[in-house]
């Protein structure tokens, strides 16, 4: 059996008194793409935020249960900034930082510690190539990242998430503000990245999970309804009727 990269067990999260996740348990294997689907407000984003511990930047949240990364509980890791750099995070809306394209990608490596210029040059080129953006921007690396088109900014965001060589890449509905052509290009990128890292793909497009994911998890109202091989989830008889309804678009 493959190695377990992330182990989530009995994870409960509340915002104030409002529950967002009610006791979720599952594993993520190394180098797989785990698709995470489910309607809005079902706790998908919250799950990602627990993994890289950015949830604790939101006030009034309580987390119970454990999330283990390579067998180590993330909440006992003292270097939370190092932990965050082990995980690449891509948010729904593209965010170019108000810096040059070069500085956008060099931001995380610089944050981690002083780097040589040549080293940074290599990182910037590698990441922009991996994110399929290099050819479009290689001649204007010093122009502002915020002035790129939405689709380009989302690829810049991915390049930035790759800049600190993460072991895990989390994508949260990355295609929500991106044109279909860019979406397909990014999907191609993810297919090549799966050999290097573990990918958690939260997606609003169930077909995207079907195209890319090895396994797919279906979340509903803060609960994990079902997690199984993507073929099974998208087959005519997944274990749960609501999974079938959601996947086939006759939900609610």
């Amino acid at each position, binding site marked *: 059996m493959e190695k377990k990269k992330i182990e989530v067990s009995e994870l409960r999260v509340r915002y104030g008194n409002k529950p967002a996740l009610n006791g979720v348990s599952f594993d993520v294997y190394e180098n797989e793409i785990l698709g995470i689907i489910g309607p809005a407000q079902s706790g998908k984003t919250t799950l990602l935020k627990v993994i*890289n511990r*950015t949830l604790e*930047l939101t*006030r009034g949240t309580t987390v119970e249960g454990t999330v283990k990364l390579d067998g180590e509980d993330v909440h006992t890791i003292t270097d939370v*900034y*190092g*932990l*965050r*750099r082990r995980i690449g*995070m891509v*948010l729904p*809306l593209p*965010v*170019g*930082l*108000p*810096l040059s394209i070069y500085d956008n990608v060099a*931001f*995380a490596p610089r*944050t*981690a510690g002083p780097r040589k210029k040549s080293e940074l040059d290599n990182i910037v080129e590698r990441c922009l190539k991996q994110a399929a953006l290099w050819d479009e921007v290689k001649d204007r690396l010093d122009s*502002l990242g*915020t002035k790129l088109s939405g689709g380009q900014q989302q690829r810049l*965001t991915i390049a*930035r*998430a790759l*800049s*600190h060589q993460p072991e895990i890449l989390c994508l949260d509905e990355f295609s929500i503000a991106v044109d279909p052509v860019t979406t397909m290009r990014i999907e191609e990128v993810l297919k090549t990245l799966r050999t290097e890292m573990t990918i958690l793909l939260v997606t609003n497009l169930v077909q995207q999970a079907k195209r890319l994911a090895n396994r797919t998890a279906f979340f509903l109202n803060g609960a994990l309804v079902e997690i199984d091989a993507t073929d099974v989830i998208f087959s005519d008889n997944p274990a749960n009727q609501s999974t079938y309804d959601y996947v086939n678009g006759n939900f609610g």
Partner: protein
Amino acid sequence: MGKPDTVQYPSAMKNMNNTTHATTGGTRDNSSTLFTETAIGRRKRWTENGVRIFFFLMCCLMILPLLLIIGYLLYKALPVLSFEFLFTNPKDNMRAGGLWAPFLGTIYLVVVSLLVSAPIGVFAAVYLNEYARDNWFTRIVNLAVVNLAGVPSIVHALFGVGAFVLFAGLGESVLAASLTLAIMTLPVIIASTKEALNAVPMSFREACWNLGATRWQTIRRIVLPNAISGILTGVILQVSRAAGETAPIMFTGAVFYKTIAEGDVFAYNITDQCMALSLHLFTISTQVPDVTEGIPYGTAIVLVGSVLLVNAAAIALRVYLRTRKKW
């Protein structure tokens, strides 16, 4: 044309076809009825115009006093305004001469007070906006900021006398007066800085945190560089308040009359008292008989002019930085 004509075109469409190749006025009758103004339409248009003119008049009414004040002051001050007026001391018990001592005094008070209030205000605002959790302490501080901004300046003056002149033993001095002014401008600087920090989108901070940046790294590399124009504008606008107030400095460090070396910008010592434009204007307009007629007006023009100049600089800075806005 095998199909029977079952589609009834709306009359407007028919008429559009007609009018395109009609050169005489005859066919227009029909279409124009569609667009004739109804009584309701006319009333709407009149109301709309009336309301707009009303608001425009209010706007003029607001500008008018400003123009009148400046115009009147200039007219009255013209006889005394000169280079010399600015750089010589008042003479003959302030009945003649220039403005050097009060002018330099005001500069001292403004600069020293902002040197104190700007850093404290900006750093406090950074803490409140970027670090502080929502607990009773922050709520009290925020409440204090809002309310201190509304405290009358005479109250600040009393506090200044108690705290700086007497308790801290600074005596009546530039320092005591400046600190009093600093206390007065502090809440406004905190408020305007918070606003400038808030204008930097939250998504930038989240992106940085996701990249493993600490709060301070995020603030230093993203938040502050993009908020600095707003912060500076807020600070510069406090120059006019610090320069204009009389009450807070009257009992804490400003004197009615004092001569200093003309042309020496280091003529004041911050542990001594100084003159100030605002107080000087008050004195010569109300306390001293037989002042040369143009001098109070000249003093007012210098005060208003310097303040407007500084404010114009703030506006220019803001405009310049807005053209370089990064998102």
